[in-house]
């Protein structure tokens, strides 16, 4: 094990290389630029390729193209670049090509504040492209160490599920400096729980059968298998067709190959859920670290509060919200995104509240004040989900 005082960007790079990533395709953007910089330095040392492209649309298309040639690839960006991924995302999802995409969220809309954390792309990562009829896998780290772990995990899941896997980070995770341990031996990797999957080659020439099975090898070009893939609705042979029957089979596979294997995907952290919490604070990413401290400290004072931190954001872990409680979603946005899913998943007789900040983290004191108000039944001021007007 090697210890570093380094950034999340560094941790992500290390994770990608350990997972077998040999192609990174990027376009400079704060706060994900350092991933591209590190990849440009490190990948050639292990025989891998870094290519800087004309825009983010090209970056992800190159990443998908190289993945279609059999390479494990990755791209990383922030919100304004992420929106340009929409086009290749759809192609990779539809053609079922494995790769890893990282989005380090800053403050939006548009360019917003470049050097501060936000969480405005919770839904965008679920629907990164048009048309629907698919499911996505999105993982959200709350530390540099976890970003390392989830990068390795993202490559693993992408191979088994034949799909892009998204890591949804934020500016504090990628730019922040932390104590990071990188395993070196196989034993250390195993002890850390890292999982690996090699690229397999689809035998061709058929596309995929209508099944929710995972571990079918993805289409790889250049092996003379006669393999086909396209942006149109495919027949089982891979030809383009415009029938609802073929479309239904395709969509079924894209949705249920993921939804029917939640046990392989779901990750979360909870606190005091079995200890009768009156309030359950919900958050992901960097703010969840403050929430965790606030919840622990509140418990010390006897406040009956618990915490849910989904690490796998999508598919959304509905099962974590089966307790009747007062839910408080703490997010780095003012419009309230995660809270909508909490409201949907929580029992109907639960209260669901929202506390949003953006560009800065909530404080423990603020959260304690909120817990207090919620227990007294007082309205939450200003940051309001179903509270008074702004």
């Amino acid at each position, binding site marked *: 094990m090697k210890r570093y005082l380094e950034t999340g960007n560094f941790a992500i790079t290390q994770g990608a290389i350990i997972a077998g990533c040999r192609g990174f395709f990027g376009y400079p953007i704060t706060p994900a630029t350092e991933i591209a910089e590190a990849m440009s330095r490190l990948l*050639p040392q292990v025989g891998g390729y870094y290519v800087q492209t004309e*825009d983010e649309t090209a970056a992800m298309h190159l990443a998908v*193209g190289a993945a279609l040639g059999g390479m494990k690839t990755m791209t990383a960006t922030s919100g304004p670049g992420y929106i340009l991924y929409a086009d290749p995302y*759809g192609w990779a999802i539809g053609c079922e090509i494995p790769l890893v995409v990282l989005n380090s969220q800053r403050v939006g809309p548009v360019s917003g504040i470049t050097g501060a954390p936000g969480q405005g792309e919770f839904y965008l990562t679920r629907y990164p492209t048009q048309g629907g009829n698919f499911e996505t896998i999105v993982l959200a780290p709350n530390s540099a160490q976890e970003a390392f772990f989830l990068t390795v995990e993202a490559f693993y899941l992408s191979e088994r599920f034949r799909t892009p896997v998204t890591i949804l980070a934020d500016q504090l995770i990628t730019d922040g400096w932390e104590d990071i341990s990188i395993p070196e031996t196989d034993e250390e990797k195993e002890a850390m729980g890292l999982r690996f999957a090699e690229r397999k080659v689809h035998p061709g020439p058929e596309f995929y059968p209508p099944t929710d099975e995972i571990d079918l090898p993805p289409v790889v070009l250049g092996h003379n298998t006669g393999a*086909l893939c396209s942006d149109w609705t495919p027949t089982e*042979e891979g030809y383009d067709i415009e029938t609802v029957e073929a479309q239904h089979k395709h969509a079924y596979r894209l949705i249920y190959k993921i939804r029917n294997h939640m046990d392989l995907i779901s990750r979360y952290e909870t606190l005091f859920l079995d200890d009768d919490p009156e309030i359950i604070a919900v958050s992901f990413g960097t703010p969840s670290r403050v929430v965790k401290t606030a919840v622990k400290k509140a418990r010390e004072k006897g406040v009956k509060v618990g915490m849910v931190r989904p690490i796998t954001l999508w598919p959304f872990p509905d099962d974590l919200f089966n307790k009747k409680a007062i839910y408080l979603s703490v997010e780095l946005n003012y419009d309230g995104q995660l809270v909508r899913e909490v409201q949907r998943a929580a029992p109907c007789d639960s209260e669901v509240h929202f506390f949003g900040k953006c560009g800065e983290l909530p404080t423990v004191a603020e959260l304690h004040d909120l817990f207090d108000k919620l227990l007294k039944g007082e309205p939450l001021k200003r940051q309001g989900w179903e509270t008074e007007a702004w």
Partner: protein
Amino acid sequence: MDYLAEKYLRPRKIPSTACSGCGLGVIQKALVKAIDELGYGVSDIIWGTSIGCAGRQTFATWKGDGFAGTHGRVYAIARGLRLAIPPEKKLVFTVGDGDAFGIGFNHLLHAARTNTQMTIAVCDNLGYQSTGGQFGWTTPSGVKTDSSPYGMFEPNWVRDDMDVLHILREAGATFLARHVSMDGPRLEATFKKALQNNGFSLVHVIYPCTTNFGNNALGTRRAVDIFRWIKERAAPLGEEREGVIWKTGIYYDASNSRPEFSELMREKVGEIHRRYQNEGAS
């Protein structure tokens, strides 16, 4: 089915889904014939297509590995794909004028800049015909389409002073040519040269659309009238005459004069990789 179709194309897709009288098949035949004459087999080529008439009607016709990319992005996809596939494989693309010169032009320029190996047949039916017939970036001046009902008055990119092939040459392309689909053996010969360039080759080929362009611009769907209309406006380079829009032949041939993208990347990465392996060993 003829010899070429049997050897190189999928019976499921031949005859193709193109409209009756469409010139697309003639271009594809010339390209496949060039491939055959150069001695390439099905496994030597990965065939890529895109969106629009040219992409949709040629997708999955090739017997070997193939793909259809998103609109305008195959030139970006290719740069990634080339790094991962065996270097001896050739990429051959059949794309449309809207795809190459409109939505995908930025990526096309960067594919030319990097001299990435791809032989691109830009099959140009003079506008957006699969969406019903709107003008494009090569639609001749004055022509009426569904979106230029008063005649095409925007400047297009096939003019002596503003030619898309000149832009591509400046951008770094190493083989550029223009033809009309009726050029027969001359078109085949050009494709043969294009395929032998280990770099960025683009052959711009005008072909007749008997369904939408014919109807909107010329008021007829008679294939022979549309063929004649195009042929009358084309002449080999150096044999120009009044009223010629498309000068046909090879515009630029710097084949194999500078490193191909993936070759350069493999070389540079190979050097760095070896250096670090040696340092690691020492």
